[in-house]
């Protein structure tokens, strides 16, 4: 009985210090096991030459399989790696088009006419569909012989262009498919942003004679900065994560010309012809390092906000 009382009072006095950790524990443990620890493990694997079969598990890796930086050296000598990097860069730059186009569509739709709500939802539609379906949709769109786009190009220029069979065009074809849902996402961010614009400031600027683009640039865009920030963050992350579309639409082909790092890693480590776990882990680490640049920037921004609030 007495002990019970002691425990109770211990709980009473320390409740505030212990409570956050009790609340955090379940989520944090899961997150550590499935996200944080695997990152470290992947970096560890990248120093080994391992096929995933013998030994059967990571924990059994021995010095026999250890290759130090060997996988990274091989990467630097691998043409596919440079192709993937270069394509990642294309994705990164072109995917950014989703931000201005999304803004443009948002401005177009930011009116109060009957039925506009439905229009907004329908414009947003592509984002809700899985990328697998988007990929199939665009594969059909481009398909040689019967794809609508193929037919349009043929009727206009007479040339038979199979976008996904061409090593120069296929990546752009996939990015275009990716831009479709991503633009919808940016649009919805901007529509929300536009909804919350300070009307007085806009009116005041109009009184001062600001119109059209000047008004947009000087008054509206600064107010949309939070929306722009989030749009850029999700677009950057989305472009580096591009895997689904590449996998569905070309499988990295023709002859490896549409590879990106995420797909290259999958191919090398987890696919039909790839069993090089260590090599795959090294590729994943490079992608992770690139992503970390953006993540750090994002965290830095958030940290500043936290300090200010």
């Amino acid at each position: 009985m007495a002990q019970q009382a002691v425990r109770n009072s211990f709980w009473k006095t320390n409740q505030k210090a212990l409570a956050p950790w009790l609340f955090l524990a379940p989520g944090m443990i899961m997150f550590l096991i499935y996200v944080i620890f695997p990152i470290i493990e992947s970096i560890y694997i990248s120093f080994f030459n391992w096929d995933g079969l013998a030994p059967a598990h990571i924990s059994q890796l021995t010095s026999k399989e250890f290759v130090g930086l060997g996988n990274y050296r091989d990467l630097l000598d691998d043409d596919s790696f440079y192709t993937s990097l270069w394509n990642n860069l294309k994705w990164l730059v072109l995917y950014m088009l989703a931000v201005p186009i999304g803004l443009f569509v948002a401005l177009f739709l930011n009116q109060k006419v009957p039925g506009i709500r439905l229009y907004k939802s329908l414009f947003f539609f592509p984002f809700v569909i899985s990328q697998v379906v988007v990929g199939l949709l665009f594969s059909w769109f481009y398909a040689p012989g019967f794809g609508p786009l193929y037919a349009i190009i043929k009727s206009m220029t007479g040339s038979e262009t199979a976008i996904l069979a061409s090593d120069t065009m296929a990546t752009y074809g996939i990015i275009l498919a990716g831009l479709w849902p991503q633009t919808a996402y940016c649009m919805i961010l901007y529509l929300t942003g536009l909804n919350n614009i300070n009307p007085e400031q806009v009116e005041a600027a109009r009184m001062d004679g600001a119109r059209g683009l000047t008004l947009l640039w000087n008054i509206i865009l600064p107010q949309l900065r939070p929306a722009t920030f989030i749009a850029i963050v999700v677009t950057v992350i989305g472009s580096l994560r591009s895997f689904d579309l590449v996998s569905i639409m070309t499988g990295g082909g023709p002859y490896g010309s549409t590879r990106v790092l995420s797909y290259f890693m999958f191919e090398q480590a987890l696919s039909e012809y790839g069993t090089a776990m260590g090599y795959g882990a090294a590729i994943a680490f490079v992608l992770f390092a690139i992503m970390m640049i953006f993540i750090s920037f994002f965290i830095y921004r958030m940290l500043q906000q936290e300090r200010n609030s």
Partner: protein
Amino acid sequence: MFPKPIEKSAPWVQTAYKLSLPIALILWLLPLIGIAMTSVRPAADLAAGNYFGMPSGFAGVENYSAVFKNSNIGYYILNSFKVTLPTVLFAVGLSCLSGFALAVYKFKSNLIVFFMFVAGNFVPFQILAIPVRDLSVQLGLYNTTMGLVMFHVAFQTGFCTLFMRNFIKSLPFALVESARVEGVSEFKIFWHIVLPLMRPAIAALSVLVFTFIWNDYFWATVMAQDASVKPVTAGMNELKGQYKVAWELISAASIIAALPPVAMFFLMQKHFIAGLTLGATKG
């Protein structure tokens, strides 16, 4: 309001705008409309080269029932639900707890823990894939619905915690303070005071997580192999292999696979958009 409200423009501009809306929409949704039309086309149309003219007849019933009859898509859809629903429940549940902890308590490592969740939420899947697969193999969870759910819950907890924490931060803190003064226990504060106020955030997150998980393809490919486990995204890839040139069937299957998140979106649109645009207005 920006741009200038259209009703203040000349009548012809207004008419032009109203006309341009449906045209723009049709262009925007062209790939989707094309697929929808293809999915109800008789196979004979495709064989005869009638790919985008008017369908010669309505074969929707045949095509859709053919997809259900000759493929595993019914199972795949069911599998997707079996993965998605528990993930939504647990990811949102866990993040209510962790979001509350990070929003309400001031302790030394608060920001570090918070940023761990935020950063983890953005890492590329590929850096997790090999260890997560290996872990699942060791736990006997590889190629099981449970294995997929465990990973998804853990990963989504990152995003959900970020979301919940920011949401709770925006609630009036005085509520918590005054309850503490009255000696209400921390758990009761969470359960009786904060949780009821979190309903909109819970709704928003639930729809979002539902969509994310339903549409996941990478993990479905890496972690599932049997038809009894495969979610519909991975299953679609298989159907693509099975049907090859039968585009009317692939199209029908695509529409079926897209339907649940689309329905979710239209039913819960307000919450969905509130969730996605969190942070787009302030900051």
